[in-house]
């Protein structure tokens, strides 16, 4: 459960998640910071509005499961887990270093709160199908969330899993697609287009929504609808996000999949975030 009595706004949570991520990027001098900045608002809503969890007991049976299939987004999830109190903030200094609990790519065995090993894209949704079946066997009311990327929709296994989830009527599954329209070789829509993406999910039998993933209120409303829906179908929320959101000089860069940031720019990025910090 998000920390009781907290009156910190979701916008402030998102700001702090971004700041944690930039500080981790600074440790390594590189990283998938653009993705972390882009998806921070979605993670703020997930971890401080939607998910049920206990920061001090990441294996608690009653938790909602949050599966990160896109392992390279680990920096973003670490930032959210730090903000959620699962990981101590000091530990971000170890990001990506030898023997750290926070390796560059998310792995279940390394990090509390990292449910699965990601990295080989197209695995998360299938694992989510099995976990949803298992939770139903146990008559649990927990949800399984799976954060995917738009690039990951190119993997055929994602669609096997999508078909399977609908066939098995997995109404405890909520997929989130971070649609930032970037992947390793360029724009996702120019590399292998998944558009029209909500039509595809609907045709597969899903309840689909598409929102501005950097509009916290819109994201919150979409999570609420997905959770409250009574239809026996899996749900997807496609979130259009802007890579590097919150740091204008990085937003403006053409190739943002793996951002090159000069040593002096990390401080500038933190300053830019501070400027946009909610009052």
């Amino acid at each position, binding site marked *: 459960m998000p920390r009781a009595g907290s009156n910190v706004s979701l916008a402030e949570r998102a700001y702090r998640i971004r700041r944690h991520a930039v500080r981790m990027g600074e440790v390594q001098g590189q990283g998938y910071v653009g993705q972390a900045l882009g998806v921070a608002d979605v993670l703020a809503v997930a971890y401080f509005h939607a998910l049920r969890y206990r920061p001090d007991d990441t294996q608690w049976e009653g938790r909602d499961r949050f599966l990160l299939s896109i392992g390279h987004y680990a920096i973003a999830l670490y930032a959210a887990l730090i903000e959620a109190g699962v990981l101590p903030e000091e530990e971000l200094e170890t990001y990506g270093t030898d023997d750290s609990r926070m390796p560059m790519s998310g792995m279940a065995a390394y990090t509390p709160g990292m449910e699965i090993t990601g990295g*080989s894209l197209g695995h998360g949704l*299938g*694992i989510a*199908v099995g976990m949803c079946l*298992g939770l139903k066997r*146990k008559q649990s009311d927990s949800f399984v969330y799976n954060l995917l990327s738009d690039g990951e929709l190119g993997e055929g296994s994602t669609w*096997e*899993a999508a078909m*399977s989830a609908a066939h098995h009527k997995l109404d405890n599954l909520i997929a989130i697609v971070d649609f930032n329209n970037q992947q390793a070789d360029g724009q996702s829509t120019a590399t292998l287009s998944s558009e029209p993406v909500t039509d595809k999910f609907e045709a597969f039998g899903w309840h689909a929504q598409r929102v501005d993933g950097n509009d916290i209120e819109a994201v919150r409303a979409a999570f609420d609808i997905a959770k409250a829906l009574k239809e026996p179908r899996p749900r997807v929320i496609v979130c259009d996000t802007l890579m590097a959101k919150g740091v204008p000089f990085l937003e403006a860069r053409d190739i943002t999949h793996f951002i090159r940031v000069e040593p002096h720019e990390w401080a500038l990025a933190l300053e830019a975030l501070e400027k946009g910090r909610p009052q």
Partner: protein
Amino acid sequence: MRLSKFAPRQAIKAGERKTTSAMIASIAADGVATRNAPFGHTLARLAHRRPGIVGLTADLAKYTDLHVFAQEHPDRFYQMGMAEQVLMSAAAGLAREGFTPFATTYAVFASRRAYDFICMAIAEENLDVKIVCALPGLTTGYGPSHQATEDIAIFRGLPNLTIIDPCDALDVEQATEAITDHKGPVYMRLLRGKVPVVLDSYGYQFQIGKARLLRHGSDVLFISSGLMTMRVLEAAKALEADRIGCAVMHVPTIKPLDAEAIRTAARQSGRMVVVAENHTIIGGLGEGVAALLMREGVTQVFRQIALPDEFLDAGALPTLHDRYGISTAEIVRRIREWTE
């Protein structure tokens, strides 16, 4: 000499024709006792006292004997459809939630199509998923699409994964129970349908990681797995007439290998070591044993009976087993040749 694959064939008279290319062919020799669906019946029985067991298949329940389990425990059976990637990742998800999933398909589809999912979703996480696959090696005449001649080569390099290649119905039954109790991922090659019963007369008991010496003999030591253990036992009997004494060591666990038993048996001087496997000569039990013996400094005359490094023909299974040297008659012929 065989015809080119593309040359026109002469018609064969009806009475001379062997049944060809059936997907499922029996491996039982005439007159051998068999048991039906040993895996399916054993799993269905175990499931009564193991509530965590669930079964999943990719449209091959009937062809992997999982239908027996499905009929007895319909609410614990998941039909995943023709989708091996989600079959494996969903099995991983169920294991994460504390269940013991048995996922079945053909060996070709598990090893070739679903490898990454077995690797990263199951083995890397050391999850309790049991992958049980029919048509291992050359057990169908259907052609390379269904002949898993290299499944062990593919899986042997995978950390955490235990690999089982049972010989007969008894072995399948005992191995099914043993892998259920074992914590961690397992790949088991399945003999399905009417499966011969052979090992009952050898006081045999399956144990994960243990090789068993089934027969003594002073000239040849067969080291074998899977259905090839049946074949070398038959060959060993036939070779008695030639006064060639053949020992047989059955190695149903391909990984981890029982190094101690294999080393001890192979050290006995004056015995040729012959590894027999229903698998390509590359990357299977033969190479595993060879490397083990080299590492241990055991130098004996060493031979392999295995499938060639080729895509194999379609045809009747007995024809193909003769053609590729894994029939009893071919084993006998080659041992005579090697011991001349």
